[in-house]
Structures are given as C-alpha cells and as structure tokens.
C-alpha cells in the first residue's frame, strides 16, 4: 500500500505529463495580416491571390471570398489550408457592393443561383468552368442586359432540366482537375472567343428587364451618322411567265406556331424555334385564380 505522499507525487507527475501533452497539441495561431502583400515568400499566404497585381493587370484591389463549403482533406493541394483546419467554415462576409463577382463553383445549380442574383442586382460577373473530362471549358463575362447571361444560352442539362448528377463520372476526382487542366492547357493553343447577345426569350425575368434597360440606355446615346448604302432591287430584265416566289405560310401563321421571331441580322436565321408558350387557361387541372385575397385564403385554410 503506497503512502499519501507517494500518491500526491504520482498525481503531480501525471499533471505535468498532461500539461506537456496539451502544449504539444496547442496550435500556433497566426496573427491577422493587415496588408495583403504580393511578395512571393513562403510566409505570405496571399502571394497567389495577388498574382494579378504582380502581373500588372490590376492596380490595387480587395478580394472578398465567400465559401460555404466545409474544408476537406481533398482541398489541401490547392487551397491555403493546412490539414488541422479541415472542417472549419471558410469565407468572409460583406454587405457593400463590389466591382466584379467571380464565380468559382462546381455545379450548374450554383451557377444559376449566382446568375439570378446578378441579374436582379445588375452585377457584372465572370463565370467560368471546366468540363468533367478536363479537356474543355469556358469563361463567360456577363454584363446583365448587354451580354448573354448564363440562363440565356444554358448548358443542355440545365435547359432540359436533367439531374446534373448524371454528369458526374465514377472515378473522377474533381480535386485533381486543375492539374489535368494545366497540362492540357499546355498542349492547346486554341482558344476561340465570341460575343453573345442576350436571349430575348430568356427564362429569367430580371434578365429581360436588364435587356430593356440596356436598350433604353443605348437609344438615349447620341447617334453617330450612318452612311446609307442603297441597295438596288433585283429585277430581272424579262419574266415572261410572271414567276413569283410566294411563302407557303403567312406571317401570322408562322408567328402563331413559333412564337415571336427574334430579330436577327440580315442573312441569318434561327436553326430551331421554340413553340409559342401554351395558353394554360383552358385546361382544368391548374389552380383557378379567383378574386380571393391572400388573407381570405389563409383564414379558409385555418378553418378547415
């Protein structure tokens, strides 16, 4: 049987050991860096973020990051996190307007959410993405109303409302895509660019509103004088059989079938037309919009 002193000694020893263990696990917290520096040294976590400034593309800028994802172990090779930080919530928040929004998301639903918000706010943004096989991708600069929004010419899965999970491939690690992309980009020297007009039949009503605003702004601008080039009508010298070209369908008929036509530049025509929107008023399976107010309906619901 050990004496009380011996036991107390044992306790002290154990306490010391515990303290030493605790000390080992204590993390050194880096002080907040007040000024982001573009200097490339291992102690500066911002050097990659500041690459644009270093390249002389931008003068001085502030970057706000929004990331509601949890930091995962698979992120470690690309992001400025260390393994012990996995599981923490990343991101900063801000309420003030920004000059440019950069979309860095990995699915179409999130892209459409950004698109909807930016159309509503009239916020300029850049959308970018890479295909699941990492050999193609796109970068789209969106000025709401002026250039096509993401919903104006949506990818097939979005347009057909297919579940985008069907795109995911077994055995493809999304986290390794940047590496593959970088290698592929090294081989390619093909990067076509084009300008895309907004779609007049875009599903997003804020996009339509922005388009109208843009048209108004353009119309208000002072017009530059245009030289009019008169084209002479082609009239054949003789037409003894009085042959004329007549359309099989009248303008009204085609409009009823295909909806209103988009105004295209001369010589262009659309390959596909969208059927005119169905008039639902005739079918009985939709809700009837009676004159009841919302309060009436709420009360009716309660009384059931």
């Amino acid at each position: 049987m050990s004496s009380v002193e011996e036991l107390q000694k044992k306790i002290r020893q154990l306490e010391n050991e515990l303290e030493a263990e605790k000390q080992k696990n204590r993390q050194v917290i880096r002080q907040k860096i007040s000024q982001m520096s573009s200097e490339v040294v291992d102690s500066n976590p911002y050097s990659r973020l500041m690459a644009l400034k270093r390249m002389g593309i931008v003068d001085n800028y502030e970057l706000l990051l929004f990331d509601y994802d949890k930091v995962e172990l698979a992120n470690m090779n690309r992001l400025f996190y260390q393994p012990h930080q996995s599981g923490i919530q990343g991101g900063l928040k801000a309420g003030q307007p920004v000059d440019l929004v950069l979309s860095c998301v990995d699915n179409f639903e999130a892209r459409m959410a950004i698109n909807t918000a930016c159309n509503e706010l009239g916020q300029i943004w850049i959308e970018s993405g890479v295909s699941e096989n990492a050999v193609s991708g796109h970068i789209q600069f969106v000025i709401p109303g002026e250039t096509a929004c993401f919903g104006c010419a949506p990818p097939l899965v979005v347009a057909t409302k297919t579940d985008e999970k069907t795109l995911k491939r077994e055995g493809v690690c999304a986290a390794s895509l940047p590496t593959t992309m970088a290698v592929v980009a090294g081989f390619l020297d093909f990067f076509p660019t084009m300008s895309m007009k907004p779609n007049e039949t875009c599903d997003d009503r804020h996009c339509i509103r922005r388009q109208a605003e843009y048209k108004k702004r353009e119309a208000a601008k002072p017009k530059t004088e245009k030289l009019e080039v008169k084209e002479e009508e082609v009239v054949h010298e003789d037409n003894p059989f009085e042959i004329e070209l007549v359309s099989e369908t009248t303008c009204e008929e085609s409009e009823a079938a295909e909806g209103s036509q988009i105004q295209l530049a001369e010589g262009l025509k659309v390959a596909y037309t969208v059927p005119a929107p169905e008039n639902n008023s005739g079918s009985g399976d939709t809700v009837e919009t009676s004159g009841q107010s919302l309060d009436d309906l709420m009360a009716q619901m309660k009384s059931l």
Partner: protein
Amino acid sequence: MVDEATKKSLAQIPLLKTKAGPRDGELWVGRLKEEYQSLIKNNKDSDNDWFRLESNKEGTRWFGKCWYFHNLLKGGKICLTDHFKPLWARNVPKFGIAHAMSLGLGPWLAVEIPDLVDKGIITHKAKEEAAA
C-alpha cells in the same frame, strides 16, 4: 419510381402557374395565392387530407402537422435527394407545396416511420396509455 397510388393522389392536386420566389414582389403574392388554393383543394379531398399547413404573412416560413398511418401502406417510398429533387426541378413552376408534401414528405414518412417504430424510438400513444 413513382407508383400508381402516388400518381393518383398527385393528379388530384391542381398545378400552379406562376414562376416566382419571395423576392419577386407582387408576382410572389400571386404564387402564394396559388399555393394556398392548391393546398385548400388538396385538404378538402378526404383521400389526401393528411396534413395541415400554415405560413407566416410573407409565405416564407411554413409550419403544421401531418398524420401517418403506420402499417397501412399508402403511396411509395422515394429518396428525397435522388428522386424527389430532380422530379421537382423538372416541374418548375407547376408543382407547389402540396406536391412537395405528397411527393416528398409522404414517401419520406413511409421510409422513416416504420424504421423508427422498429427501433423502438417512437411508440403509439394510445397503446402506451392502455399499457400504463
């Protein structure tokens, strides 16, 4: 994926028309009216009357009660993320809250309740009282 019983109850719920969200002002009020009309129609139909819902004034928060008949098979079982969500996405804006209850909550209950009963996590109240 969707069985005949679900299809039948689904067909009885009137479809909605307005595509709008809570940020869309007057359009949202219209949508909300449609939601209420659709729910009222659904609850008046005795076969489909298994839940009660009400919302705040803005229609952004909904709360209520639902009833489930254990061991009385009604409707199929589907997974919310794999089955319900894509089905819902394909049917914007026609599907409303009543459809979500019928296609989402109903089948979800059909999966979860028997499981909870089997594990003994929930018990029947009336039986409990009788035993006590």
